[in-house]
């Protein structure tokens, strides 16, 4: 009796594994293997053109060298500026918009849809439209001129403004996603607490800061972590809009990794940098997990 049951269980198990097998193969082939491979070659001086296997193990040289590499340090700084600028603005804007739309907006659905559209639009198309928006004949330059500025900034062609211009676009295209998450979280908030607050005579602002923000803190935590990771990995708009320029103004980490791998063909070095990027993101996320105890209430 027992034996049959065991084999039944085994059968069930095997069926289960068979079901997930295609995915497991996929993960191993396209995620696990490249990860391990990149870790190995990050300790080598592999030049892509020399072919697979034609490499020397050079220990931690790649990891040590990058801190002397101006391109690496400047792109790391640009990435940090980018993320630190984009994340709080996106998340805060999304929260405000979610609350306003939820409470005061007449046409809620179209509004949410309009906000969400940029997020689901193809980033290539979005970037090309924004290039036109930032051109001297585009709305931004005209707006600045309207306010009486004689020499409006050249946005993407200006070393000071190119990065903020990209950040603005990223906020615009990312705010819809955060807004959607906030909206669904808002709908799940307990109404009785708000009623109690009403009876106690709390005004809207008090309710927002004392109730809504603490209630939503797990959502905020989730959004901060995910948007931080995605802003550290920004690549497509840079490739399409500025290619890292002018000068090194918009050269971010992932773009530089791409350049050193596929323009300079330094695969080992590029892999080493991607592992550093991973460690940085891992560190930041761990830090946030540790910090959440202070401000996230479940």
């Amino acid at each position, binding site marked *: 009796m027992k034996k049959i049951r065991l084999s039944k269980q085994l059968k069930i198990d095997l069926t289960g594994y068979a079901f997930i097998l295609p995915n497991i193969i996929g993960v191993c082939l396209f995620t696990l293997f490249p990860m391990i491979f990149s870790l190995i070659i990050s300790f080598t001086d592999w030049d892509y*053109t020399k*072919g697979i296997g034609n490499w020397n193990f050079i220990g931690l040289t790649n990891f040590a060298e990058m801190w002397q590499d101006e391109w690496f340090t400047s792109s790391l700084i640009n990435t940090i500026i980018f993320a630190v600028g984009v994340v709080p603005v996106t998340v805060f804007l999304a929260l405000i918009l979610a609350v306003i739309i939820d409470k005061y907006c007449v046409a809620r659905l179209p509004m949410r849809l309009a906000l969400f559209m940029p997020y689901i639009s193809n980033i290539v198309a979005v970037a090309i439209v924004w290039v036109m928006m930032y051109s001297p004949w585009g709305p931004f330059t005209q707006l600045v001129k309207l306010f009486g500025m004689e020499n409006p900034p050249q946005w993407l062609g200006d070393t000071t403004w190119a990065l903020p211009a990209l950040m603005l676009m990223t906020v615009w295209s990312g705010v819809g996603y955060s807004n959607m998450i906030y909206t669904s979280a808002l709908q799940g908030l307990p109404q009785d607490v708000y009623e109690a607050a009403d009876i106690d005579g709390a005004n809207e602002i008090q309710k927002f800061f004392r109730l809504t923000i603490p209630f939503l803190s797990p959502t905020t935590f989730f959004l901060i972590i995910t948007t931080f990771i995605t802003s550290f990995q920004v690549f497509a708009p840079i490739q399409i809009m500025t290619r890292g320029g002018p000068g090194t103004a918009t050269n971010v980490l992932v773009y530089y990794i791409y350049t050193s791998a596929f323009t300079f063909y330094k695969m080992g070095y590029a892999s080493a940098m991607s592992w550093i990027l991973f460690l940085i993101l891992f560190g930041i996320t761990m830090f946030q997990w540790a910090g959440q105890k202070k401000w996230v209430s479940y």
Partner: protein
Amino acid sequence: MRKWKKLGALGMASLMAVSVLAGCQGSQKTQQAATSADTVKTEGAKTEGEKTDNPAPVVLRMWGGVPAEAGPQAVCDNFNQLYKDKGIQVEYERFVNDDTGNLKLETNLLSGDGVDLYMTYSTDALTKRAEGNMALDLSKLIARDNFQLTNYFGTLAEAYYINGKPYSIPTKLDQYGIVLNQDMFEAAGIEIPTEWTFDEFREIAKKLTHGDGQDKVYGMFWNSQQDLTYLFTYLAAQTNGGDPMYKNDKETSFDDPVVIKSVELINNMMNVDKTSPTHTDSVTQKLSQESMFLTGKSAMTVGPWIVRSIKDQASYPHEFKTAFAPYPVVEKGQRKYTQGGYGDHLCINPKSQNIDAAWEFAKWYATKGMLPVVEGGRVPASNTYNALEVTEAFVMGAENYLDAETTQKILITPADNYAVPSITNHIAEVKKIAVEELEGIFIGKQTVEDGMKKAKARADELLQK
């Protein structure tokens, strides 16, 4: 109620996403090129399999950067007709000749025999491919068939040997020049120059510039958004030869007086004379030579690769006639080299299963088959072609838009003093450094002197490492 609303929203959103994606497909030809390469591969395999009853012809796969309709397809059709009974057929696949496109090609070459023959467009790429076992050493085949490259291409062919060995057949003769709008020159009463200095060039550009705002006609368009390094290197190469960025293997020439003068010329025309759109204009408005020169918004531009578009009246309709002039030099008597040399280096994939057939095609293409691509603006390098026939094919269909005399003189008649590049040490990094500092110069963040000094310091440090 709310649930239904949500479902509706989801439906609409996904509908829009699909339509956005569909809309984007047109603009993403680059990526399509890659995927269609794969389909061609499978189709090729299919036809090979089907024709098992009679001896299956060898189907060569040839990759090139020129759109198929601009000549390569006609070349392949001619070849397929000629070699129908000899059991060799060829299929053309286009890759876009930019970083991404070349990467696709190289990935393909490194991973197997998906490509039999391909074009290499720059000497540094040729070096890399020869050294990286992506191009076949042709010495044995040349000796076997007594196909001495120097017999067909002169001693210049040897300049493209890598480590003393031929890895490619040079097929195209490149001679560069300034492209100019002959009608505008006539209207301004300026003769088409056959020799000019930087100062004369600047003055002529000033005379040709007029108008304001969106209607402004510029004397010159530097096309700087595409690549900042080739502009000053082409100018400097007239005097300094084929390695305008290097003094030697370990030192860049960014402090060379001719190089500095060249950068100054471009900078002055952009930012002082305003006779050319600035680099910022080019970048922020994504200007192209087609949108500037062929629409009559600039009287001159660098070239001559725009010939392809000049002949394409359907896409770029224009009325005026285009002529050519040599690049200017700093001072009279400094013209020691002709900017140009051989291009379109036809290589064979060493992993190819059909090396003999590929070699057969390569020989035929270089010495006999190129006329259809001449019509697309490519001058054959081999001496087996008749110069008059080539000129005729070159201007064919564009007799009213191309000045035959300067076309033949500047672009077709071979010179004997080409600037041939030989140094490729860290060239990608050196170029990147140059681009970054030049951008700083052209947008006014630093002077020419400071910028080039920085570029030299940074690049030399890298070369000496």
